[in-house]
């Protein structure tokens, strides 16, 4: 079976490596981006089954990445499946991201690795 490809966009290296560990451990192909700008380039050129996108990042934040992708039609063309990874919880920024077409959001601190995997699995299957 083809391993599903996931892009983890996370500026905190500790968390980035955590998600890489968890996801690769579960058998997924994982690519990473340390900030919004790199993420934007990778999304434009690459192909991902799921994108886990942080909001608060240097250079370009998650919202800006989404806005840009949407403005250039990339989001629609690639039929992107984006899930917000955040610690902001119920926030105006999250609400805004939801309006930009993301599929959902996960509050980082609330999930154990086991729960996270369950969520990822659900998003990939749905």
């Amino acid at each position, binding site marked *: 079976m083809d391993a599903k490809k996931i892009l983890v966009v996370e500026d905190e290296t500790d968390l980035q490596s955590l998600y890489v*560990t968890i996801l690769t451990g579960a058998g997924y192909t994982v690519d990473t981006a340390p900030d919004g700008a790199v993420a934007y380039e990778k999304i434009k050129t690459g192909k991902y089954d799921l994108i886990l996108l942080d909001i608060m990042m240097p250079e370009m934040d998650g919202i800006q990445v989404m806005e840009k992708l949407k403005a250039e039609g990339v989001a629609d063309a690639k039929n992107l499946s984006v899930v917000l990874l955040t610690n902001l919880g119920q926030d105006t920024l999250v609400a805004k991201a939801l309006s930009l077409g993301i599929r959902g959001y996960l509050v980082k601190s609330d999930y154990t690795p086991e729960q996270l995997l369950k969520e990822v699995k659900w998003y990939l299957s749905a």
Partner: protein
Amino acid sequence: MLEILVSVVVLFLNGTMGTIIFLRNRRSWTNRLFLLLALLINTYIIVNYISLNPPGGTLEEQLAWTRLVMFVTSFIGPTVFLLVDTFPREKIPTRSVILASVMSMGLISAALSMTDMIFSGIELRNGSVVPVPGPAILVFLVAFVGLFLVSFLALILKYRRSEGVEKAQLFYFLIGVIGTFSAMALTTVIPTVVFGYTGLVFLGPNMAVILLTCVAYAIAKHRFLDLKLLIFRTISFFALLATAAVIYVSTMLSIGSYLFGTDLTSSNILFFSLLSLAVGYSLPTVRRFVEHITAPLFFHNPYDERKLLKDITDVTTRTIDLDRLVGGVFRELFLQMRITSSYIALYEGGKDVWRKGFHFSDGKLDPRELYRQARKANKIDADKVVMFHELSDDSVREYFRKFDIEIILPLTIKREMFGVIALGPKASGEPYSSRDIDVLRIVAPELAVGVKNALAYEEIRNFNETLKKEVKTATAGLRNANRSLKELDARKDEFISIASHELRTPLTAIRNYLWLTLNQSNKPLDAATRTNLEICYHSAERMIMMVNDTLTISRIERNKLELETEKFNLVEFLESLCEEMRLQANEKEVHLTFTSTEPDIVVKGDSAKLREVFQNLLMNSFKFVPAGEGMVKVVLTKEQEYAVIRISDNGPGIPKDSQEKLFTKFGKVNFAYDKSGAKAGTGLGLYICKKIVDLHSGKISVQSSENKGATFIVQLPVHSARR
């Protein structure tokens, strides 16, 4: 002789009544017309008497007197008419056409009377003198009889239309008219025509006294007592005067007849007595008039003290503004007492409060120096007046002269002096008379009271202004404070938000790596390490919970906790929630069950927040149930309009005294600290639950007794299509 006596009495009565009524109110046209009527009637009586008893005895003479009678009579009709028309008002009703026609009627009739148009001649017929009517006799009849009749009708009409006092007054007028005519009929027409007796004819004209008496009474009716007193006084005065006149005239005539051989006849005595009566009676009035005319020639400041004081009282009682009050009072003094300059200074506790000069020669007058000089004069305390020409101290005199001050008056209230008035010389250049001083002594305290009132008023007004300003300043201060507080609050919220977010990132790493270590380590951990790491893991979990709660509370306090409502099936919702929670229940070896009495119950609410509520409640239950044999039951029922969720456990229960504050902020159950150590939460969980349930218009409560477990009950309104 009887004829003359009666006529004299009538003449006197008529004259007196006319004068009294006129003097009561000179400006009233009713009173003026009344006097005119009285005088006309008197003249008529006199002329009529002479025409009947002509001194010369010739027919020509008699004709002339008769014409004079007609002349006088011509005016009676118009006067009566005007009196009726005006009565009882002060002004003649302005109807120029009527006025002009009535007056011209009288004038034409009077003018014609003196020609042969009305009486062409006179002749003796059967021994009596009869005037021959001329062609214009009709004019006279219209002017006299016609106007009389019109007046009578007008009077009746007016009486019927009037009301109240006026009706009563008109009633007396009517009585007078009717009385007069009746009396005339009784004395002239009836005896002459019926009995052929003419002995009473001479009384006829005198009967007008009835009319005049009645009208006089009517005019004065509303001040009846006043009139009675006046009449009584006048009669006594006149009687005294008459006695004196008779004695005086008799004495004079006696001396005259003795010295010059003048005739001492009774008619002479009567004539001169009447003359002196008239002179004596009118002398006071004449004297006053002469005084009034000549006063400006002999006195330099003829002013009416009463008028001046009245005008000043008008100013002091009607003015509250200090400037206008002082200006007004000085204005009256300038205009009436004819002073040339004035100065006023007010002080309080030795301090200048206010001062103002009018035409004062030197504006540099120092009020302090003025008081000092005044005190030096040793007279200025209480109500003493300092006058220049009474000063003995040379230096004070010098000071007064320097500023051209004639007089200084203190302004005092309750013997406390709070200001002075300085007055310059009078326009006439003469010193102030004792009369002026008396007036000023009355003016000063009056002005003092007025000034005090004005000062008090000003003080209140100033106080109001100050108060307004201060309130404004305070309000502005509060507004600023409020703004900075709001800014501060916003910054605090921002801080909490960022801090929480920043805290959560490392906590996520700690928690997750601990989890990986505990659950996916290749090497088995030794028991002690495992326990230690588990404590670390749970502590990290607690810390994340606290951060979450802090964020939620911060939102609640900012009223920013908004619901994103949707309709959903509460049965499915709770079923899946319990399924999720079963994972953790299993971890904690808790037996979790869910049952519903209904297949589906739809509610409208924020499912994410409600999830938080039930998660919180379940986690609480998991914490407190006994290890290994924990039982948590979730039961959903529908009771009336509410979906009721009961979460029961078999934990230690909650003591009664703790139940009340369970849902308040930091309202944790007391024993949690001692017994459950690591299980302790932030104490915010239930508070948040209650807030969220409240937002859903629901209720949350607890039922428990110690050692018998606890049941948390959440009630949420059922969504009905009707609503």
